[in-house]
């Protein structure tokens, strides 16, 4: 069973339906105890960084999410759910994130011919595999398309967590992987077959095989 964190930011139902489509079971929850005891956790999200962190704190969800990640169980962040893992978001001021990964979330600063938000289907490139198989290396080919919609991107302090990059006026981090933690800037639930493949692979992740930070 996959638990999807509900903090009123985003299309939880699409994520749930996509997981069900690939044969998984998913429930939506905003209950700190349920989140802390989840088997696998998905942190989805669209919207603004500051509002999202305020909602997470208001619902007392920050500690359960951080504890879950520390426990080594499989975790998937999507879009804003990737950005929130970092220390600092610079969207409408400076906001403290969950601090699970070191680094910032910054706005695209590009020549005027690059539209922001970065919206649509773009291709990803795999970084050198880190050894073991994971949902970001299994079944994803270089140059496969995923659906992105975002104006901010993550800049990890430790480049070795970057699993996939994407190019939009220069390369940026499209997905990270650190042990049991996987997170994508794109929306697998909106990326047709490529996205469903990733979700199927996450659904198949087990705790022990991946808990290796």
């Amino acid at each position, binding site marked *: 069973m996959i638990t999807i964190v509900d903090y009123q930011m985003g299309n939880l139902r699409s994520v749930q339906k996509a997981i069900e489509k690939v044969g998984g079971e998913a429930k939506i929850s905003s209950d700190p105890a349920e989140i802390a005891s989840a088997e696998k956790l998905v942190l989805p999200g669209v919207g603004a960084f500051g509002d999202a962190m305020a909602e997470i704190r208001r619902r007392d969800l920050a500690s359960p999410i951080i504890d879950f990640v520390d426990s080594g169980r499989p975790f998937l962040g999507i879009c804003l759910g990737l950005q929130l893992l970092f220390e600092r978001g610079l969207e409408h001021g400076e906001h403290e994130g969950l601090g699970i990964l070191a680094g910032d979330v910054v706005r695209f600063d590009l020549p005027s011919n690059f*539209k922001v938000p970065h919206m649509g289907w773009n291709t990803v490139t795999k970084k050198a595999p880190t050894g073991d198989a994971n949902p970001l290396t299994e079944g994803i080919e270089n140059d496969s398309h995923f659906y992105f919609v975002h104006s901010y991107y993550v800049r990890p302090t430790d480049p070795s967590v970057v699993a996939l990059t994407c190019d939009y006026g220069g390369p940026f981090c499209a997905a990270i992987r650190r042990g049991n933690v996987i997170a994508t800037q794109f929306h697998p639930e*909106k990326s047709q077959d490529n996205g469903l493949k990733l979700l199927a692979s996450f659904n198949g992740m087990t705790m022990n095989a991946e808990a290796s930070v």
Partner: protein
Amino acid sequence: MLAARVIPCLDVFQGRVVKGTNFVNLRDAGDPVEVARRYEAEGADELVFLDITASHEERDIILDVVRRTAEQVFMPLTVGGGVRTVEDVRALLSAGCDKVSINSAACTDPDFVRRAADRFGSQCIVVNIDPKRIIKDGKEVWEVHINGGRKPTGLMAVEWAKEIERLGAGEIVLTCMDADGTRDGYDIEITSAVSEAVSIPVVASGGAGSPQHMVEAIRDGKADAALAASIFHFGQFTIAETKQAMREAGIAVRL
């Protein structure tokens, strides 16, 4: 490389896809979920449902269509038509659509765009702009119209597009009324003027009659996506054929 998007638009009337001309002689063209699935299989990059029911009493019907579609189709879905309040936006997003398209209400209550973008994020707020070429004081202007092109607003397309961006919209769908329904091609001049004036994505709409027109919208009109209804509905061209033509013209597409 970011792909130029090809977006089929479906008119939905009382829960069914319809084909027709100017809202008359509507013909039933199937269940929206089935049509959405077919377009997904053909390679559509996104899908737009335009609810032409337009009566508030029938809002629940489109919400049900969105719910059923989002269960089976895993690509971005935009819904427009009769979106007037923050509550309308919330209901559509929680039913499972990804972006909500605001048309007349943006002109009559611009602050609604700001409220919706503040609450739900710019990425899901699309504003439709429908300009028409009008002669005013001996000079041509591109005046924004509402109510299907019947009502002038006094707003000028390029300035209005900049204002929409400032209010927080994440995307513009630009339907040039003089070209709409002609199948003679998009209005490239207005499209490129608007696209170059703003830094948010612009979807060209109105006038598509062939894959070549979509090439022109992207290449010459500087649009980020091309929307079309009739050329796909009537089976004249498939989405795959259209994308092939775009690729041959040197445009990055997702095949």
